[in-house]
């Protein structure tokens, strides 16, 4: 979230799209209700299904799954055509006026630089035009045809209400009502927020779905304001913490990145990430990159990390490709990965294309499953009738099960969608032989280290030299680990302005990432968490919910990264002179000497606004980007591409371009390309999702959850039910080209047939949550049906859009 849960109450318009907040986030959703009741907010829901969120919405708009970019591109066109933009904001706080390189181009679904033989982009032309000083050229008059604003206008010219109606299936009047309601928020006294979740991410264009949402908000000047922003609602209680700590194959903690294979030189690695300002007097905060990186290396390898060995740069793996879960399964399948440790992960159920996953796991030598529950993955080799039809005699994988504790059995912080690190305390001890994850991982590490010590091995240094400073080596405590993330001084640190003054003694916790150094004098396990556990104690355990201004800025409740800042980009809530655009919900302001207010300023604290520093301090430009440059795999502006399984079969925007149907930058393995079904055989659009009664594949083991939602079902509209010849409660068979499931049919008015490109298209809703280990009534794993192709940037699978056929079972 750019903002936070409580702040939603300040919104005048709430758009829920690519998510179903009432269903998946019922507790946080209270703030939407609060906005409606006490701020007279209007709630808009755009979704293929009339959802639980839609049940309390002022406006519901249906949309075909996988067409969000057409819809939001249409909104952008509307805002630009009718001039519903916040001019002061857009001109000063975004790249709207920046001029793009002359060789940049977009035509027929492809950006300049496309190599159709290699299926890759050369992104060189995706850049601003720069002057001899290295700074970008701009045209504040907006007359230049290649300034970003004009390019954007041209880019979305085809995203008309007519296009929205025929490609998205959204009725024109409903679409225009959405535009009109949103457009009211380009005024400085009104603000809109957007809530999204995996309904945007689970697409082959997922990252661009999120970007285009942010672009709409930028046009209206809603990023940085209280009640504004774009809110990623995290689906798993600590998945925000997971990404913060870099538990992705190409990441390091704090959104630092692992080197690529060609990056063997430390100096070049750092220089590339130390981004120089692209305009005069910009902060470009990543100029501090080396401080965060070196402090991380000191945290991991302690005394072994020295300037001489480039802070253990050689210890870091240099990745040749992304090792996401789809890649991993493909590697297992090809015999390139022999062992697999699943910690709190149930891939048989959660990874797309179950048959593919089963085959991959069957080729492993060993599989370790560390989980509090008897998850399906641990029994992937065992026949459970039709629900898991395998021949155990043909699977040689050895499976080890380690019963672990769950979140309620340990202390620690959980990071919520608001970026708040909320400390919690164990409610009970793990039962029986179960042990906490930290203990398992420590034991595993100590054992491996011992093996390297006694038997040697290839390059044992990273293991042997890993810093392990915990009081009890077998059981590091959450407190010790949290303090390590916060970071500390390794030697006495002097005041940069007065070297005779010591501001931080050796061994003390740092107060924030501003104290971190790249000379080896500080250690910090996750720079964005610096400040969570200082010399003042555990800030995450704070529970003071006083809200002095009444706009929900409870700064002493837990702790938010970065720097306890509750609303990111809050400098952009003020005008050029530093006065809040909206006095009634002001966050910070310039008082002539400093920035201050009810939030921690996201800006240089003493920077006079007259000096022209932009509010988006992480960007080298100092402003927010409509033009994404080379940061995205498929291009600088979001383009609509059809889901890999499309009920249309062509791209409505480029109907004659056969190679521009799907995202050209997506990574597609051969086996998965072959697994795609055709619309003629599988005519219905399916989408998978979660139900409020259940939590992923956990609560299938819980009696009360099963009582309130006892049995696997799929949702179909009345029209499709009639075509198939079933009524509510009958059994249907749902097949894709990868497998089939049987389930009870919930027949509903909430899913309506859509007219797409002149033809009727039915949606099928497929809740996950059931597996062959479910208490009461076992079910089929929904991911039997899904496609193992992901978003071109994140490789997040396209769980939300694929083709099936529904029949009477």
């Amino acid at each position, binding site marked *: 979230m750019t903002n936070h849960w409580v702040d939603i109450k300040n919104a005048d318009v709430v758009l829920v799209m690519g998510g179903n907040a*009432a269903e998946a986030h*019922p507790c946080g*959703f209270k703030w939407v209700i*609060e906005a409606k*009741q006490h701020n007279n907010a209007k709630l808009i829901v755009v979704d293929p299904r009339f959802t639980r969120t839609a049940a309390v919405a002022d406006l519901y708009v249906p949309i075909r799954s996988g067409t969000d970019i057409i819809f939001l591109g249409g909104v952008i066109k509307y805002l630009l055509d009718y001039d519903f933009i916040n001019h002061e904001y857009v001109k000063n706080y975004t790249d709207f006026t920046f001029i793009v390189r002359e060789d940049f181009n977009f035509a027929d679904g492809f950006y300049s630089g496309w190599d159709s033989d290699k299926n890759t982009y050369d992104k060189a032309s995706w850049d601003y035009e720069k002057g001899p000083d290295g700074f970008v050229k701009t045209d504040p008059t907006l007359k230049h045809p290649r300034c970003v604003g004009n390019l954007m206008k041209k880019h979305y010219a085809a995203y008309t209400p007519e296009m929205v109606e025929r490609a998205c299936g959204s009725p024109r009047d409903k679409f225009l009502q959405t535009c009109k309601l949103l457009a009211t928020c380009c005024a400085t006294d009104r603000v809109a927020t957007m809530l999204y979740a995996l309904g945007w991410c689970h697409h082959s264009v997922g990252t661009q779905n999120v970007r285009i949402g942010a672009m709409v908000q930028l046009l209206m000047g809603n990023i940085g304001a209280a009640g504004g922003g774009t809110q990623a609602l995290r689906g798993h209680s600590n998945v925000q913490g997971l990404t913060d700590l870099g538990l992705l194959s190409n990441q390091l903690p704090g959104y630092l990145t692992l080197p690529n294979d060609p990056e063997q030189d430390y100096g070049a690695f750092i220089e590339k990430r130390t981004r120089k300002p692209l305009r005069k007097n910009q902060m470009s905060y990543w100029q501090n990159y080396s401080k965060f990186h070196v402090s991380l290396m000191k945290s991991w390898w302690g005394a072994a990390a020295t300037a001489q060995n480039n802070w253990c740069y050689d210890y870091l793996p240099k990745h040749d490709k992304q090792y996401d879960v789809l890649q991993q399964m493909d590697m297992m399948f090809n015999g390139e990965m022999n062992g697999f440790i699943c910690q709190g992960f149930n891939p048989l159920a959660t990874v797309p294309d179950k048959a593919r996953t089963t085959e991959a796991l069957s080729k492993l030598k060993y599989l370790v499953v560390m989980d509090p529950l008897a998850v399906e993955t641990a029994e992937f080799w065992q026949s459970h009738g039709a629900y898991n039809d395998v021949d155990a005699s043909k699977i040689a994988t050895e499976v080890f099960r380690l019963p672990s504790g769950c979140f309620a059995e340990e202390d620690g912080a959980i990071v919520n969608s608001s970026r708040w690190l909320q400390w919690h305390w164990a409610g009970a001890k793990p039962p029986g032989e179960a042990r906490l994850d930290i203990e398992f991982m420590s034991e595993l590490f100590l054992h491996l280290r011992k093996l390297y010590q006694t038997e040697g091995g290839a390059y044992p240094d990273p293991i042997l030299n890993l810093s392990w400073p915990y009081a009890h080596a077998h059981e590091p405590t959450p407190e010790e680990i949290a303090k390590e993330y916060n970071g500390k001084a390794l030697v006495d640190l002097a005041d940069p302005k007065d070297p005779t003054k010591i501001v931080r003694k050796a061994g003390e916790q740092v107060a924030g990432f501003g104290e971190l150094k790249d000379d080896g004098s500080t250690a910090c396990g996750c720079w964005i968490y610096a400040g969570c556990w200082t010399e003042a104690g555990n800030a995450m355990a704070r529970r003071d919910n006083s809200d002095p201004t009444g706009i929900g800025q409870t700064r002493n409740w837990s702790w938010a990264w970065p720097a306890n800042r509750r609303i990111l980009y809050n400098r952009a809530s003020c005008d050029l002179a530093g006065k809040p655009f909206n006095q009634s919900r002001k966050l910070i302001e310039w008082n002539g000497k400093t920035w201050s207010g009810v939030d921690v300023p996201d800006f240089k604290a003493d920077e006079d606004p007259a000096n022209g520093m932009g509010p988006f301090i992480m960007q080298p430009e100092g402003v927010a980007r409509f033009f994404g440059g080379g940061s995205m795999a498929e291009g600088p502006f979001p383009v609509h591409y059809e889901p890999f399984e499309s009920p249309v079969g062509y791209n409505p925007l480029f109907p004659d371009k056969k190679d521009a149907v799907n995202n050209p930058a997506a990574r597609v393995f051969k086996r998965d390309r072959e697994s795609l079904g055709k619309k003629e055989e599988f005519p219905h659009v399916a989408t998978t999702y979660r139900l409020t009664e259940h939590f992923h594949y956990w609560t299938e083991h819980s009696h*009360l959850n099963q*009582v309130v939602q006892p049995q*696997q079902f799929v949702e179909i509209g009345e029209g499709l039910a009639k075509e198939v010849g079933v009524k509510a409660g009958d059994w249907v068979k749902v097949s894709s080209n990868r497998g089939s499931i049987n389930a*009870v049919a919930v*027949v509903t008015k909430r899913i309506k047939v859509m007219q797409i490109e002149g033809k009727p298209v039915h949606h099928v809703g497929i809740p996950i949550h059931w597996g062959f280990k479910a208490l009461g009534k076992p079910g089929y794993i929904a991911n039997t049906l899904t496609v193992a192709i992901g978003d071109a940037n994140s490789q997040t699978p396209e769980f939300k859009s694929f083709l099936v056929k529904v029949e009477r079972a």
Partner: protein
Amino acid sequence: MPLQSLDIRRRSATTIQPPAARVEAIPEVAKLIDTTKCIGCKACQVACMEWNDLRDEIGINAGVYDNPPDLSSQSWTVMRYAEYENPKGDLEWLIRKDGCMHCDDPGCLKACPSPGAIVQYANGIVDFQEENCIGCGYCISGCPFDVPRISKKDKKVYKCTLCSDRVAVGLEPACVKACPTGCITFGRKDQLQHDAAERVVELKTRGFDQAGLYDPQGVGGTHVMYVLHHADDPTLYSGLPKEPKISPFVRLWKGAVKPLALGAMAFVALAGFLNMVRGGASETTAKDEEAAQREKEKMHV
């Protein structure tokens, strides 16, 4: 605020009124369910089962979201989901938390022949005292909302207590505490009526011209009230009765026929006693059960 008072106002099948000196000082409580803020998450259902130690069976999906499908001795509250297409052609998903309405003039209590099996507290809560329940099912026929359910396990009747045990110690009912959207609130009835009036004003600005409070006077008002978008037609909400009334049979039973009925009961008791003395309780036959069932069904009229 003495909401927690468990002073008894009324007791089933009891002619002697309980001491009433303090009653007037005790405010009436209510639970307000604002259907316009309900997202149908069923947190209230789960909280109810947890607090009251209820564990219904894991059933089946019958093609709808409603689960368990109906109230039972193990499910004292259930969500009911209705899909309604309004005259404008827009869909509305009307979700209602169903359960005991805690009528101010409770038909169940009036119908109950067993002394003290049903009580009404001074704060308005209607509570079943299962130790006094004889399982006759008269309360079921007396209820204009079809709420009480007989347990197969102990043949006694159960329903929502409005968490009288929690209210007695100053806590809100479990469902209220669990509700994530603030759709269910609890407090003084007069205060909640005021809150509801504010909600109705706001709903009218959002185009719900017929928004209103459901507090039906046919049963003397209720201690569980709804804010409805369509107060003109409560039946849209999975058959919430438009004008609930205590069945004429119960009124008759409590009126003119009562002395006769009491006489008949005395006779039955005497006959039963003689039967016991002579040869012990006899097993009922299937025929007897059927006859009893027919009687019961007749009473539903």
